[in-house]
């Protein structure tokens, strides 16, 4: 009987910790776009590999950005 292959997830290092960025700017849409899906949803931490604090900072930045129409709340383009 074949055992389910034990998946060894590669441990991602939070990009912000690595780059030593302390403030996630809501105006930097190119950076933030990496953390939203093509539907405009914020990517989960298990996808982005961010640490707790930086994931939260990213989420806040994305939300601020959305308020200023820099990022979409939803986008139908797939």
């Amino acid at each position, binding site marked *: 009987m074949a055992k389910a292959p034990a998946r060894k997830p590669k441990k991602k290092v939070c990009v912000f910790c690595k780059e030593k960025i*302390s*403030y996630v700017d*809501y*105006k930097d849409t190119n950076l933030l776009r990496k953390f939203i899906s093509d539907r405009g949803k914020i990517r989960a931490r298990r996808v982005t590999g961010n640490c707790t604090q930086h994931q939260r*900072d990213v989420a806040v930045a994305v939300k*601020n950005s*959305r*308020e*200023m*129409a*820099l*990022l*979409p*709340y939803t*986008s139908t383009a797939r």
Partner: protein
Amino acid sequence: MRSYELMVILDADLEERAVTPLLEQFLNVIRNDGGKVEKIDTWGRRRLSYEIKKKSEGIYAVVDLAAEPATVKELDRQMNLNESVLRTKVLRPDQR
């Protein structure tokens, strides 16, 4: 005095040369009340991600300033009363 970062979206129907005077007019609120305007960064026309007031374009401007809280509140109030201001956002960059 506190430092603030203000972002405004202005109506894109506004003429390009009318933007600076309009901003200056608002920022006089700060200057007349003892505040300092440190930097004005006009991004220019930019597509909005979604329509605001049925408009799909806006003129973005980011202003760094230092002023008393009450002054900034008054500035924000006056901006929101103006028809050609689509949206504003005031943040304190030191608070994070």
